[in-house]
């Protein structure tokens, strides 16, 4: 090989396996060898074959599959559940070679792979293969007696692959039962190849959980750690952490919860793209709230996905119908899709991948998971928690407004944290609980948190009736919340008191009105009196002045009269005064007025 080879940028071929291309940052190294190791039933062969199928169908890259361990027919049967169209591909782009050495083969002395490689070379040239898979190389190596022979054949294989410029995947079983020489060989094989992927299958609380890990990738970085994997209709999928970018666009658009009372408490509804956790004991109407949300989403014409665990979609719809929530029509129109999964047999990882598939197919804007807590029942809690988190992040990445319910047993405060610990990631958290008082159980609703919203702090009573749900204000008396009958009693009492208060206040109002009227009447009277007095005062003043003037004139007149004719002077005085008063009347009206008055 040329010395410049290591310096050039490593090129990769996509495997087409959901999630794997992400954690391997682009797939497997091109024209190099990848070793896939793992115990029986961990998914090695599926990984190898799916890679081949994907390359052949999506990238039109032909490939060869050499089956040392399993018969080709068995492989076809095992993968029949996947939508791979193997038999079609086998006609043109894929070549399958049955390479099981039956027990009837008798080994007498040393042998090698030279002949097989010569055959594969001919086949490669014939179909233009770019990929080759050796499935179960351990079976072949076990026939070689000495470690030296094994190593020699591994070298032979490596040299051949390098020469033929094939991107190859070699799978090999590892199990604890192997002898010392085997492990030496595997160590050597791992050294020889450019990429090593380890598969693992563990039982966790009775559920098998499969994982894979890239333990070596020469010349490339990769996502470290174990990643869970599961099988869906398209084959294997690896749960990758997905987009690590948490900078998501935040909208201020509000989406109705389908429940006016709750919208009000939330300050207008849920934010678009937010996730809401509804926790509560059994029977606290979690599903009903989820149903209302679903119905309103469908009524707005938004595609919705309803995932129900442990209960079939039909039962869910029937139960919701009894509280007036109609989902059948939305199912028919295709707006609503329901997925039901049993959680007692399938591991949580598988559910997550199925849900992810549904999301990419149905493309919902709103989504319900009822209840998410079901997944923590099976498998390890730690993995269920990780799934809960990943699910919420996934929904957020897709900008899906989600309502997730979780069952909380009992009413203790510590349980409120929820087993899955998703309450810290969820944007909103609505807690439903039973409050027992006065010999009754009543449902109470509290908004524990709501990001970016000035939400109500009150505990409300959730009232379930034929007409649907309603939220009532609760009465607190002496620090105790009153609900149900006690609330009704309190309410009735309040009502009676209100009537009384109303009566009392109306009486008082009237009294005050009377007093006011009285006072203003008195003010009017006094005002009139005041005016009268002013007029009197004015008159008095004027009289005084007139008297003063006339007394002056009188004196002069008297003096004049006394000087000439005293009789005449006396009659002229009243005449002058009359003329003065008649002047404003003018226009000849004066006499008429005088007559009327």
């Amino acid at each position, binding site marked *: 090989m040329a010395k410049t080879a290591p310096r050039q940028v490593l090129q990769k071929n996509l495997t087409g396996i959901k999630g794997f291309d992400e954690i391997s940052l682009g797939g497997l190294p091109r024209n190099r060898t990848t070793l896939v190791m793992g115990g029986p039933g961990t998914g090695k062969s599926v990984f190898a074959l799916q890679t081949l199928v994907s390359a052949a169908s999506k990238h039109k890259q032909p490939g060869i599959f050499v089956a040392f361990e399993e018969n080709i027919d068995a492989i076809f049967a095992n993968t029949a559940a996947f939508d791979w169209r193997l038999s079609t591909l086998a006609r043109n782009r894929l070549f399958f*070679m*049955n*390479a099981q*050495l*039956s027990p*009837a*083969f*008798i*080994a*007498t*002395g*040393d*042998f*090698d*792979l*030279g*002949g*097989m490689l*010569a*055959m594969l*070379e*001919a*086949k490669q040239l014939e179909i233009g293969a770019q990929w080759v898979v050796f499935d179960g190389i351990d079976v*072949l190596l076990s*026939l070689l007696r000495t470690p030296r022979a094994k190593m020699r054949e591994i070298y032979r294989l490596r040299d051949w692959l390098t020469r033929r410029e094939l991107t190859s995947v070699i799978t090999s079983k590892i199990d604890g039962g192997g002898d010392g020489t085997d492990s030496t060989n595997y160590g050597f094989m791992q050294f020889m190849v450019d990429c090593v992927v380890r598969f693992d299958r563990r039982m966790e609380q009775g559920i098998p959980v499969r994982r894979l890990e890239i333990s070596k990738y020469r010349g490339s970085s990769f996502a470290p750690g174990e990643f869970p994997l599961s099988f869906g209709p398209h084959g294997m999928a690896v749960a990758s952490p997905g987009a690590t970018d948490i900078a998501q666009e935040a909208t201020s658009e509000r989406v109705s919860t389908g429940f006016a009372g709750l919208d009000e408490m939330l300050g207008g509804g849920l934010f678009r793209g937010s996730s809401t956790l509804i926790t509560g004991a059994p029977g606290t109407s979690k599903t009903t709230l989820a149903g209302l949300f679903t119905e309103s989403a469908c009524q707005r014409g938004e595609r919705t996905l309803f995932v129900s665990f442990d209960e079939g979609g039909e039962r869910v719809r029937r139960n919701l119908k009894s509280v007036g929530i109609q989902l059948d029509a939305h199912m028919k129109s295709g707006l609503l899709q329901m997925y039901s999964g049993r959680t007692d047999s399938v591991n949580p990882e598988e559910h997550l991948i199925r849900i992810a598939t549904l999301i990419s197919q149905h493309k919902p804007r709103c989504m319900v998971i009822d209840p998410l807590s079901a997944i923590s029942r099976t498998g390890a809690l730690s993995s269920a928690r990780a799934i809960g988190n990943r699910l919420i992040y996934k929904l957020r990445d897709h900008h899906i407004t989600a309502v997730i319910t979780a069952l909380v047993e009992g009413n203790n405060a510590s349980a409120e944290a929820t087993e899955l610990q998703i309450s810290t990631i969820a944007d909103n958290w609505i807690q439903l609980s039973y409050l027992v008082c006065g010999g009754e159980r009543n449902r109470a609703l509290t908004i524990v948190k709501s990001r970016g919203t000035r939400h109500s702090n009150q505990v409300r009573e959730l009232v379930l009736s034929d007409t649907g749900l309603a939220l009532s204000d609760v009465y607190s008396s002496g620090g105790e919340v009153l609900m149900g009958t006690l609330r009704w009693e309190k309410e009735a009492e309040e009502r009676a008191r209100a009537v009384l208060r109303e009566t009392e206040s109306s009486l008082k109002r009237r009294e005050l009105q009377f007093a006011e009227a009285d006072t203003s009447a008195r003010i009017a009277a006094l005002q009139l009196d005041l005016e009268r007095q002013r007029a009197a005062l004015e008159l008095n003043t004027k009289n005084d002045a007139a008297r003063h003037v006339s007394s002056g004139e009188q004196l002069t007149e008297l003096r004049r009269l006394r000087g000439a004719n005293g009789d005449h002077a006396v009659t002229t005085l009243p005449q002058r005064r009359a003329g003065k008063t008649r002047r404003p009347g003018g226009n000849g009206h004066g006499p008429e007025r005088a007559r009327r008055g």
Partner: protein
Amino acid sequence: MADKRKKKSAGKDAVTVVVMRLYVAGRAPNSIKAIANLEAICRQHLKDGYKLEIVDVCEHPRRALDDGVLVTPSLAKLSPTPGANIIGNLGDTSSVLAALGLPTTGP
């Protein structure tokens, strides 16, 4: 190297003619050994007559593929029944004879 070689014991048409086919990979050491070992066995133990075809898979890969050959060297006993498949350089004479269904009574 010669890809096909046919050998027949001289003269008589034996009652039990063993028909065999040996697949080899060019001049690979194990293949050369296998040819030598098999020829020695035939000389010593198949005096009645045998028929051997040697196929070099490097030259006839398609044929080997069709015949279901995996590793080399590999010997197939075609007749008489029961057939047998023997892999390896045939260094262990007694097990080769046993596999071919021949008495191991040799010199």
